[in-house]
């Protein structure tokens, strides 16, 4: 929804003042996100969080003490005007709150579910210093869901056609948010996706129980209604090159938002045993190909029922994989991480939910070899216990193996979720695109311009594996910069 639409809204009569006196607001306890029963949910793929009821959302909004310099806004990677959004919620005008949110964040129903709020907006909330911060993520989800369910989603106004066209490579969070912004400016926007379904990591990576696919589809449909064109089954770098997009297909600009690429393995013996998966493969089989509905869908996945499953890693991907294994009926689902729980990069809510669902955490443990039977099927992982030593380059204490502490952890399935490296398909077919020594694309952090005129890049293919919201932020920055380039024609 654009600002002009907002102005045509009926004037809000309720004063934007919080009725509860300041000192009392801080006494209101943080509302709790209702969630499905852990026993029940750990056997199905339904969404875990149920969403705040309206009265709880109102109460939660009352807790905001409206800081003069709101830390939440500063800490938000896309600078959502959270203070204003929360005060609109307090007045009960949820649609206006959602519209305000959409000024800076095109996909609030998604980020409300998957952002690591504790490190971002909620981490900057002053209430968090003494008690619990305002549940900004839960409020964000509430207004986005309210807006969607109301059917009153005001699509933003589209500027008159500029005659310029932009190719966007990748339909993940970076690509989708750039597409939304650029189409509003009147440019023709075409998004190319390598897979058969749109949404990138939101579809193949994040499981249904954390982000229902229907929500992603809805956002994609909104973009389609706004005029964004989508073409699936195109691997840019193979089906068509960047140069061909610019020359023979006459796009005026290209935004490369291909996301995180190749899965990293542990490079330990035995990684070829049947039953060892990358988290990308395991999650793609489940999320994109729906292998968990084995009776209806053709793509198989290892039958985890009554098996011991281990997942290696400490981030959100590892957490998604281990909770998925649990839902597939694993006898045990164990997370193996070489540092301690405090260093885990996963969202705090996922850690909490995983523990509730009976996931076993084996911290300070590192696999050094996979063991299998004579037919090549995995039977276990030889692990070594670790202890934390001196801090390393990123400030986290480096885990070091404890001599003589090796033992075998039995497992039929092992899933490796320790990060990704850059996918080289575009870089290798675009010689004048500058890359880092690790083969990520070099792009200016503000203008998102690459070394190649007309080509912009953002998201995980520039930064390496990060978060949905950072990728969206990159997409939005790129849209501003691409618009500027198309308007002025100067590079």
């Amino acid at each position, binding site marked *: 929804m654009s600002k002009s639409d907002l102005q045509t809204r009926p004037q809000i009569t309720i004063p934007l003042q919080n009725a509860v006196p300041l000192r009392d607001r801080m006494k209101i306890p943080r509302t709790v996100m209702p969630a499905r029963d852990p026993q029940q949910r750990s056997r199905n793929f339904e969404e875990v969080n149920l969403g705040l009821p309206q009265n709880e959302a109102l109460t939660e909004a009352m807790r905001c003490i409206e800081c003069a310099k709101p830390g939440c806004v500063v800490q938000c990677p896309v600078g959502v005007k959270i203070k204003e959004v929360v005060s609109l919620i307090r007045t009960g005008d949820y649609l206006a709150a959602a519209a305000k949110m959409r000024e800076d964040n095109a996909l609030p129903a998604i980020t409300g579910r998957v952002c690591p709020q504790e490190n971002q907006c909620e981490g900057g909330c002053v209430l968090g210093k003494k008690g619990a911060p305002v549940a900004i993520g839960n409020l964000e989800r509430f207004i986005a869901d309210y807006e969607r369910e109301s059917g009153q989603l005001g699509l933003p106004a589209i500027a*008159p056609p500029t*005659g310029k*066209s932009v190719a966007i490579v990748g339909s993940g969070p970076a690509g989708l948010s750039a597409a939304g912004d650029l189409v509003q400016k009147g440019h023709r926007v075409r998004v190319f996706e*390598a897979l058969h379904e749109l949404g990138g990591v939101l579809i193949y990576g994040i499981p249904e129980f954390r982000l229902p696919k229907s929500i992603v589809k809805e956002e994609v449909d909104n973009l389609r209604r706004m005029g964004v064109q989508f073409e699936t*089954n195109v691997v840019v770098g193979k089906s068509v090159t960047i140069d061909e997009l610019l020359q023979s297909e006459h796009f005026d600009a290209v935004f490369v938002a291909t996301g995180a690429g190749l899965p990293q393995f542990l490079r330990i013996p035995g990684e*070829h045993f049947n039953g060892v998966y*990358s988290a*990308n493969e395991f999650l793609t089989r489940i999320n994109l190909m729906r292998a968990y509905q084995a009776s209806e869908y053709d793509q198989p996945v290892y039958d985890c029922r009554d098996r011991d499953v281990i997942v290696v890693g400490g981030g959100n991907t590892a957490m998604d994989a281990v909770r998925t294994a649990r839902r597939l009926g694993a006898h045990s689902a164990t997370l193996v991480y070489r540092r301690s729980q405090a260093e885990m990069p996963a969202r705090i809510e996922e850690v909490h939910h995983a523990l509730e669902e009976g996931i076993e955490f084996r911290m300070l443990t590192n696999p050094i070899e996979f063991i299998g039977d004579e037919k090549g099927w995995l039977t276990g992982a030889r692990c070594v216990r670790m202890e934390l030593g001196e801090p390393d380059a990123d400030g986290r204490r480096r885990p070091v193996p404890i001599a003589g502490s090796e033992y075998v952890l039995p497992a039929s399935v092992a899933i490796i979720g320790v990060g990704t490296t850059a996918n080289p398909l575009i870089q290798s077919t675009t010689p004048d695109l500058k890359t880092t020594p690790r083969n990520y694309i070099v792009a200016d952090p503000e203008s998102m311009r690459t070394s190649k005129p007309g080509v912009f890049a953002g998201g995980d293919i520039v930064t390496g594996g990060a978060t949905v919201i950072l990728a969206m932020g990159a997409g939005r920055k790129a849209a501003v910069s691409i618009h500027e380039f198309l308007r002025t024609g100067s590079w």
Partner: protein
Amino acid sequence: MYRIVEAQSVGLNIKQFVVEAPRIARKQEPGQFVILRLHERGERIPLTIKSSDPAAGTVTIVVQAIGKTTSLLNCLEAGDSILDIVGPLGRPSEIQNYGTAVILAGSVGTAMALPTANALKQAGNHVIFIEGARSAPMVVFEDEVRQASSEACIMTDDGTYGEMGLVTKKLNEFLAAGRPIDFVLAVGPVPMMRAVAGITVPLGIKTMVSLNAIMVDGTGMCGGCRVLLGDKSKFACVDGPEFDASLVNFDVLMQRNAMYRDKECQSLKHFKEHEQEELAQLRAELAEKEAERARLSAEAGERDKHYV
């Protein structure tokens, strides 16, 4: 959706399809493949590209009915559509003038090997093409094999066509006769490729094999198709599918390709029992999608008037 313009049975359970896929047709090079999906509940499977016609915007793929998806695909006819096809994937074959190049292909592997054979011949190689099949009805593309090569031999396991014996028998005959061989490409079942490598690698002949690992996305994202080359892990979809046979661990490849065998068998058995229903369901789904697509493009056409 990708319309099938021609469908033709070319051997026992082997069918050739000409499919409208202009992007793939423009870019295809010898040695590359596609991944396709037939319906919303379908799996993604890699398939060979035999040739392409950039002007007509079509690619020719060859399918042997082995599992459920390939069996269902082979029920389709001209006028039907394939829901999703992506490609061309993988690195193209390395084409050089090696001197004498021997291509060994097992039945449907012939389709994959043909464009490479053609390119090698054009590059000036003396191309010896040895096609093998279990039995006469599985011998495919004999005319094209003869055209793409300087010498062609057809072998059948049971002697019902051409010469009786495995492709390796013929290879050994060439070697025994003292024919110089500078390059070998083997495309076929893993035991066949392994047997070829077992002969030529010890002789120091550069030998490539085209590996048919299990894949999902085909872009390097999932790592499911990893193969062991010496002590290094490579992805067949982006680093291959052709690899230096002297480094390939064929045991690991066989073991990994057997990963879902039980499910594949169950799935195929179920399909065989419900073949006509499954086909009718697929056609209904495609028709529905066709209608949906037409509606969307009409809507978009309305909008796109602005952009002209």
